[in-house]
């Protein structure tokens, strides 16, 4: 109504003018280029340094030399990093839009911990050993904790503080459970203490094949939800007035976030803060439109994850620091910075 009566405003509410579109598209291509660079670095850098020529040789004319074998190993690791990074970034973007909470992150909301606890249960008590077997446990754990945090944090009056607290408290309870399992079962301790930090080092082609379908489905679902989630971000009443189906959007968003986060956690253990940081950084230059946030997040999150992985391989050579630890150490200060920057009223 207002727009009809004031013609000048129509220009502002219309789709972005071509030059902004062009800038964003070019930016996206630039981001993809950065991602390719980081991916090459992730293949080249490690306990054994490889030259770019060796990397290219290993990639395109594999002849079974030692360097080629190393390249093969690192390619699996890099591809898994790409997939998991994109999944975490997308699930973070979906969760932040869904909860209207700038601090939402699958790790902070306890979804990672839920998946971890379920996977540990599967491995220890049900003797499940294959990833395809326990990925379902991971989904179940992630979904159960997601729902619990959502209710405990106050589904309607969910403030960032309440949600984050509910997530942290439930994570604490679940980590207590993990510890009990590890005390009782030495074999579980031997395996779980490496799994629970979040690492890409166990990646194989098999892992990738097993999680790929879930990640593809979850990502497509997330992209399809960009439009309705844009409406939800304006508040429940406005969203309804704009014709969004609130309950369906919410349910599908939780589903997408759960599938993405559950599969990522099943593949390489809990990784925190990637889903928090990247959508935030992206939003600062794309604005609030999820149709742009999501592709950027899907490209830049793997940059962060692979970058952290490369850092982790370099800082403690010849051994490595797991990627989950590097992202937490990088992400914690970013999180605290965001908390400090925000005013009371905004939280």
């Amino acid at each position, binding site marked *: 109504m207002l727009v009809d009566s004031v013609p000048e405003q129509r220009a502002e509410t219309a789709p972005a003018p071509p030059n902004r579109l062009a800038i964003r598209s070019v930016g996206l291509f630039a981001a993809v280029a950065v991602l390719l660079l980081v991916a090459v670095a992730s293949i080249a850098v490690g306990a054994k340094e490889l030259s770019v020529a060796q990397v290219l040789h290993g990639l395109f004319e594999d002849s079974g030399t030692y360097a080629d074998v190393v390249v093969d190993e690192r390619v699996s690791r890099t591809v898994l990093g790409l997939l998991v990074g994109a999944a975490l970034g997308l699930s973070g973007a979906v969760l932040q839009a869904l909860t209207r909470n700038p601090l939402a992150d699958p790790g902070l909301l306890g979804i990672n911990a839920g998946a971890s606890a379920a996977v540990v249960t599967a491995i220890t008590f049900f003797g499940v050993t294959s990833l395809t077997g326990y990925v379902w446990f991971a989904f179940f754990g992630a979904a159960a904790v997601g729902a619990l945090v959502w209710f405990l944090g106050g589904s309607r009056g969910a403030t960032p*503080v309440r949600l984050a607290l509910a997530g942290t408290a*439930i994570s604490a309870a679940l980590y*207590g459970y993990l*510890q009990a399992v590890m005390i009782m079962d030495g074999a579980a301790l031997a395996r779980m203490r490496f799994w629970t930090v979040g690492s890409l080092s166990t990646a194989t082609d098999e892992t990738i094949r097993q999680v790929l379908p879930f990640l593809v489905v979850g990502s497509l679902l997330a992209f399809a939800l960009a439009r309705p989630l844009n409406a939800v971000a304006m508040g429940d009443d406005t969203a309804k007035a704009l014709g969004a189906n609130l309950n369906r959007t919410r349910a599908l968003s939780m589903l997408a976030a759960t599938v993405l986060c559950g599969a990522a956690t099943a593949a390489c253990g809990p990784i925190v803060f990637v889903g928090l940081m990247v959508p935030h950084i992206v939003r600062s230059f794309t604005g609030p439109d999820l149709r742009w946030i999501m592709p950027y997040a899907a490209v830049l999150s793997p940059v962060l994850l692979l970058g952290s992985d490369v850092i982790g391989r370099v800082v403690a050579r010849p051994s490595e620091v*797991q990627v989950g*630890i590097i992202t937490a150490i990088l992400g914690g200060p970013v999180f*605290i910075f965001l908390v400090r920057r925000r005013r009371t009223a905004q939280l």
Partner: protein
Amino acid sequence: MKTAQKTPHGRPRALRTPGGFSFRLEPRALIVVAALVVAALAASVVLIGTGDFPIPAADVVRTLLGDGNAGQEFIVNELRLPRVLVGLLVGASLGLGGALFQAVSRNPLGSPDVLGLGQGATAGALVMIVLFSGSANQVTIGALVGGLVTGTLIYLLAWQRGVHGYRLVLVGIGISAIATAINGYLMTKADFVDAARAVVWMTGTLDGRDWKQVWPLLALACVLVPLVLANGRGLRMMEMGDDVSHALGVRVERVRLVLMVSAVLLTAAATAAAGPVSFVALTAPQLARRLTRSPGPNLVPSLCMGAALLVTADWASQRLFGDGQLPVGVVTGVLGGVYLLWLLVTERRAGRI
């Protein structure tokens, strides 16, 4: 001394002295405190009697009063009494620390174990266990230092022209995530024996505690508990908001600093003595508040509730799993999970969700 208002039996009343002092008398809270003290002592006697060599409760009391036989005297005074005392002191410290944190952060979930103090203390202890294969004393000192450093960091990072509850909570959660990652890293660096030791420590246990742990805890409690209670009045005012309490004459930031430092010290000392026993600090103040049905921080009831809870949980862990099988932290962890679920159900029923 005369009562100024006529109130129905059992309701809080104000006592005023001719000198102009006044204080609230809450019969229900007093009864709750008395009941909790009795419960804690009874649980202690039962816990002392529990173990590979069971002793009837009557004999325990007789031995404690000084005329048991030599064998019982050794078992009670040298082996089991210090463990129970550590349990009581740790529980009381955690209960009080939790009540302070929850009151300052104005949030029922804002307890020190959620805010990263437990994780920070664990990081200090793990550094000692994993990097230096330290003795029990060194681990205790490491945990103490870790807890204090974490508490200071949280306070400084949350400071921005004063500390607000929400910022304290969120900064704490951020610090907690970082500390968790560091702990995970240290665990992967440990050899298997150290890792097993570290996991038991991280869960929180009272196994093998002796008089050496009792004295420092007792000394700290003797200093901090009166200090905290003296500032309790200001804390109660602060629940009405910083502006109102300022107008009522409370030096908000100073009271908050004193109470936070006390809470961090209490929690760090308790964690150093028994490991990060989860959820006692979270649940004790809430249970105490439900029992007294009194608003405000409920400091003394929380303290008694913490002591009673931890000793009862230790007894339960020994009875349920056998001596030395699963540490007390597992029981309090389960308890915390149940509490969270219960909170979920009641908040829903009350229409607040």
